[in-house]
């Protein structure tokens, strides 16, 4: 056992850093550090650059066009990119549907879909949740009725992140209304340009638009777009959710968050000195810092199990729970560091490239909106209550 990096891993980290510095647009990077929202171009240009390098699908095995990295390389890659201010990779293609396709899809499907995911030519979104099926995902009602070599799909998906940017959506649909909840579900890939697909924005509490309703009205989907056998969609769904929960811990960006919180404390005036001179405040940052370390080490332990061939087990739910709480706490403390200057609402400074100047310090405009927005992290990807149910049932046997 050894925490220190081997020389070849140091060289690897240097390569990743050099790549990020050469390829990440300064405007995108600035948005990361100022807490502004990215637009589609910020994400796609960066992802295409990663794709050209063969690094977008960085968790994939070589066989499917991934770099075949070991656990340490993945860890370094994620950390260096976060340090350099890269936007997070939108997970729906490379982290979610890609692995589902190469694990459960036919050769033909692999050939057809994997290249577009690896290159970021094609953007994906996730159509799982429905108005009546959130935590109880298996109660989903979107119906797919077989007609010859097509399915006719009717229903509504909701909370669909980035559906307004998506070219394709992967959906869980009910193909057999008679079967028991989980058994009648199939996994379908739907081209968003198909007639009958309508996307409607949902405005969040901070004024942001990332999520959408997606209405499916007599949408004709070729049977060839089904991954796995009919009625076996739940297996794909579960496989994907376990992957989703691992990435959702967001350790590298939380490390960046703690660093920037310390910078803000150093910049914020307080009683003739700065907030960094207030031990009551800095102790709260230290507490967070230690929580991040515990989380990171737990994630590394989980990854090293996976490296030995194990699948991510139900214990990754614990990582999702703590990861989301930590992200929320960072935004909370950041807002408290800003104090009364968190009150001015300047949407122009969050969403657009404007010449508007901040009312308070530069770091103030996103502080409160991020705190509000990050309440989502304990809700999406399976709420923390559901994660705790999973741990208590699957890990503790309760």
């Amino acid at each position, binding site marked *: 056992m050894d925490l220190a990096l081997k020389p070849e891993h140091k060289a690897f980290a240097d390569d990743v850093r050099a790549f990020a510095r050469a390829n990440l647009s300064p405007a995108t990077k600035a948005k990361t550090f100022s807490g502004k929202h990215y637009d589609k171009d910020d994400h796609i240009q960066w992802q295409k650059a990663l794709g050209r390098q063969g690094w977008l699908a960085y968790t994939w095995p070589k066989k499917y066009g991934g770099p075949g990295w070991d656990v340490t390389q993945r860890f370094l890659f994620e950390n260096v990119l976060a340090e350099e201010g890269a936007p997070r990779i939108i997970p729906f293609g490379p982290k979610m549907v890609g692995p589902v396709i190469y694990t459960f899809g036919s050769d033909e499907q692999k050939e057809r879909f994997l290249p577009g995911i690896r290159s970021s030519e094609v953007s994906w979104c996730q159509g799982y949740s429905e108005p009546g099926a959130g935590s109880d995902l298996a109660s989903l009602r979107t119906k797919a009725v077989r007609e010859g070599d097509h399915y006719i799909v009717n229903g509504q998906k909701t*909370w669909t992140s980035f559906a307004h940017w998506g070219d394709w959506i992967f959906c869980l649909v009910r193909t057999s209304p008679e079967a028991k909840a989980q058994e009648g579900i199939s996994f379908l890939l739907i081209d968003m340009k198909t007639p009958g697909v309508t996307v409607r924005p949902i*405005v969040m509490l901070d004024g942001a638009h990332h999520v959408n309703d997606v209405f499916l009205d007599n949408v004709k989907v070729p049977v060839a777009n089904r991954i796995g056998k009919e009625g076996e969609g739940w297996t794909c769904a579960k496989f994907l959710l376990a992957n989703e929960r691992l990435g959702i811990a967001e350790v590298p960006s939380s490390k960046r968050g703690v660093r920037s919180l310390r910078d803000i404390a150093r910049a914020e005036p307080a009683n003739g000195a700065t907030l960094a001179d207030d031990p009551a405040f800095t102790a709260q940052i230290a507490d967070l810092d230690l929580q991040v370390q515990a989380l990171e080490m737990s994630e590394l332990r989980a990854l090293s199990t996976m490296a030995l061939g194990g699948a991510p087990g139900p214990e990754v739910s614990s990582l999702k729970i703590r990861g989301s709480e930590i992200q929320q706490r960072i935004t909370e403390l950041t807002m408290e560091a800003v104090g*009364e200057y968190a009150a001015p609402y300047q949407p122009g400074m969050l969403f657009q490239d404007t010449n508007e100047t901040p009312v308070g*310090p530069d770091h103030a405009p996103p502080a409160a909106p991020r705190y509000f927005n990050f309440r989502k992290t304990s809700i999406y990807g399976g709420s923390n209550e559901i994660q705790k149910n999973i741990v208590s049932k699957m890990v503790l046997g309760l």
Partner: protein
Amino acid sequence: MDLSLSDEQKQLQDAAERFVRDKYAFENRRKIAATEKGWLTENWAQMAELGWLGMAFSEEDGGYGGGPIETMIVMEQFGKGLVLEPFLPTVVLGGGMIAKAGSKAQKEALLPPMIEGKKQFAFAWLERQSRYNLADVSLKATKEGNGWSLSGHKGVVYNAPSADHIIVLARTSGSAREEKGLTLFVVDAKAKGITRRDYPTQDALRASELTFDKVSVGADAVLGKVDDAFGVVEDAVDHAIVALCAEATGCMDAINAATLEYIKTRKQFGVPIGKFQVLQHRMVDCFTNAQEARSMTLMASLKIDDKDSVVRRKAASGAKVQIGKSGKFCGQSAVQMHGGMGVTDELSVSHYFKRLTMIDLMFGNQQHHLTRYSNLAMAA
């Protein structure tokens, strides 16, 4: 001891409840928030007519002889409706300081029109570096003939866009952060030399950054004694804190009620989600938190006019700590128990959550008041 409301106080509570029901249905509130000035003249006129703008002032000052309990009663209802009219800056802070420190002439000129709904105030104390220290003031007032000249910056001044007069806390002597050497001025909001940058706040109120460039005022603009404003300001802010606590209590009641209703009706896994024990217990904790908040607010309202300034200050800080803690717990829990719906703009929960969050940041957050309370308690 008697903790029950008098008949008049019950009537006041009923009237405030009715006002909120009639004027502040959630979709109405959304419309009011979207208007340019962010509140309605007709609502303000109605508050004047109902006597609310004068209830906490003595009859001598043209008011109706009530006090902090009356303020608590209406603020609590305002919290339930997320009312947007500028009651706190105008009546509690502005009116409060004028009644406390004003000359006979100032009171006569300012209080009756305020009580009639014809004049509004804003209180400019915060500066970029102040954080929660009321004495960290550097905007300078220097003698100029018989009067004064004001130069400097004030930030996050609530209701400045609508105010007729700005009550400005300025440094007339002493060094940075010294309590001695601060003076209050009542300044015409349209005075030459004031520049305003207006903006909405996270919780749909209106505020401004104000720059004072050699703003000339007469000697009669001084409110209270020169160099000696700190006590008046601290007391006014403590009164405002207690009023805010009452508002927060109303917000918590409303957000808890909405959440309770939601978990009784939203079904997952074939049952209302309120059947899951983890949500039941969280809901119970929300109600307990709101109870504690109500208790500390009532206690502070009863003590805030105490003769002993230490009692007053401890009461305000103690209540603010509780409101910070309870508000955060109820707000975060309500959002969580609503699932995805909780983080949308569509439902009222997120709007209560935002207001509760901003209340914690106003006039010192939980941590600040814990320290202040602790220092006062250790000194005793």
